[in-house]
């Protein structure tokens, strides 16, 4: 990623982070009429994938999709309205936080039922193929959902039909509050399953590092287009908030790999900061961008929030 791309990704991550933090604060005050899953800490995956894809490419999300939606360029106002149940929301206030939609930018929906997204996204990818369009489809799923039978069925069917489909697995270690070591056999190896089992392309990325996600996504998109076969991007990431709701629960008993220090050190914003310093941008300038961006986003949220009519 060049300097400008890194700055753009930084601003987008801040947009998502600020939105999430503002919603979280309001959630604590019981002002949100929606069940919310925050993506604080996981923003780099959505932003990296979105920057590597084109507007015409399709996104389909899951229960934790505010980041995917905003990264894709989804209408910010409509998302906020939706979460508050305002009828000006992206789903007219009927769907809530778990139903993000902006057809104008090809964000074609999200499903909160784990493992249900991949089959639906495969249908969207198939529709594009039948219409002879050259875009790809992307579906986001958590590591818990990647243990569902529907995921494996869809991998096979997508391969059979040569669908231009990218599966993005966001592995934040926990399915709800169950750590991966309680869910997977000792020798569970997703790379082998995808590479050797299905014969599909697989890339592992550091989900905290937007550039790594961006680069690996680009590699896979090229392969999808060249080989007409689905691919899997597997991103390790850190979920700062609880599975759902407004709690930041790093000290909860179920947590095994987390501490405030680790989360701060591996924060996506810190990764970009280091990269920008290498590209000879002063710390002062970077902090100024961060500060201004947060201020701008907080003000934007505040204005929209003041206009919300909760039904």
């Amino acid at each position, binding site marked *: 990623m060049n300097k400008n791309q890194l700055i753009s990704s930084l601003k987008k991550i801040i947009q998502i982070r600020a939105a999430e933090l503002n919603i979280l604060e309001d959630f604590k005050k019981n002002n949100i009429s929606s069940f919310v899953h925050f993506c604080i800490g996981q923003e780099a995956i959505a932003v990296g994938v979105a920057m590597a894809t084109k507007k015409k490419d399709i996104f389909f999300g899951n229960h934790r999709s505010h980041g995917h939606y905003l990264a894709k360029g989804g209408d910010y106002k409509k998302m906020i309205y939706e979460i508050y149940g305002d009828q000006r929301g992206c789903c*007219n206030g009927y769907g809530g936080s778990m139903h993000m939609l902006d057809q104008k930018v090809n964000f074609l929906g999200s499903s909160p039922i784990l493992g*249900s997204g991949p089959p639906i996204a495969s249908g969207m990818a198939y529709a594009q193929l039948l219409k002879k369009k050259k875009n790809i489809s992307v579906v986001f799923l958590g590591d818990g959902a990647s243990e569902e039978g529907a995921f494996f069925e869809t991998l096979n069917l997508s391969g059979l039909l040569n669908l231009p489909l990218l599966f993005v697995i966001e592995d934040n270690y926990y399915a709800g509050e169950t750590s991966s070591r309680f869910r997977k056999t000792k020798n569970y190896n997703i790379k082998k399953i995808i590479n050797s089992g299905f014969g599909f392309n697989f890339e592992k990325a550091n989900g905290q590092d937007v550039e790594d996600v961006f680069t690996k996504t680009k590699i896979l998109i090229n392969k999808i287009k060249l080989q007409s076969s689905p691919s899997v991007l597997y991103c390790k990431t850190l979920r700062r908030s609880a599975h759902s709701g407004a709690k930041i629960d790093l000290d909860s008993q179920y947590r095994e790999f987390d501490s405030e220090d680790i989360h701060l050190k591996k924060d996506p914003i810190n990764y970009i900061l280091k990269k920008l310093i290498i590209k000879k941008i002063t710390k002062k300038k970077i902090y100024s961008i961060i500060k201004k961006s947060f201020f701008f986003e907080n003000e934007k949220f505040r204005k929209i929030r003041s206009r919300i009519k909760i039904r």
Partner: protein
Amino acid sequence: MIKSKMIWMGEALKLAQQNLLKKKNNFMVFGQGVSSDSYGLKRIAPHKVIEMPISEVSFSGMAVGLASQGFRPLVHHIRTEFSLLVLDQILTHASRWEFNFKKDYICPVSFRVGIGRGWGNGPQHTATYHSVFLQSPGLNVMIPAFAQDAYDQIYFLMHTNNPSVILEHRWMYKIGSIFKKKQAVKKLNTATLIKGPKKILLLTYGDGLVDCIKVKEILMKNKLDCSIICISFFPAYKRFSKQLLKEISEYKNIYLIDTSPYEFGLLQGIIGELFILSNKKKIKLVKIISPPFKPCPTSAKLAKKYYPNPDKILNKICKNLKIKKKINYKKLTFNEIHLNPEFNISTNYKLKRIY
């Protein structure tokens, strides 16, 4: 002028699909075995009739995704039990797609689901979960029994903006009835009335029609008669048809011929609504002839006792209405009880479509 002709319900389903495959670019058929010769579809449009792996969840979900992008896929599940694996996609996703998202973002996916009795099919291949689908707002539920209904319902899939489930009683595939070809169907009847005197009404749906027709024939041979109402369609956001309830309420003696266990079933829902609307005044008698609240056994000897049959229905009618006259009829043979019936519904009956 388009002539009417006698065809089986199964043939009507096939004919409608063949026509749509030829005429509609966005109509597709998915499932296991759909490319077999017996389906008679693959040769018509090889690229739109797609054989699927044993992966019900993924290919049904794929159909949901396709439907959201302008296609009209029809997914085949030859047994209800197989479709249960896909309830997430049918109920949680397809049926509330436009509700979750937006009214103009539609998902007109449809599912053909084989349901009900079949020789030797036993407890895990004969379940009748009509209520499961009927309890899901946003989903059209169709239960064809007449050939015309079957044809119209498939055509209606091209018109509706809602997802649909066609619950096909396999028992009915070789039941013939009068049928007329159409080019488009924009409205479906919710039931069909086979006219008779207002004294006795047999209220049924799906394969219950077979037993009701047999009872009507026997009664007529004995200079008695009855009316039959066969329910066939429940629109996505309206389960009770006013016209249907009005028609039923005109009868004083109503016999519910249910081939599913009655408790919390389709007919119980209808009759419950009728009682509320009529304030229990008009209806004199409601009797239920249905299987026990148990799954259907596999063995022929046990299955014989399970479903309603003309014997059981006639006994109940004679007993309740105190008909002293002896009703003569031939006892059912083994084949008549256990094997898929094959006969034509008389063209002499006067039919009325209820909307």
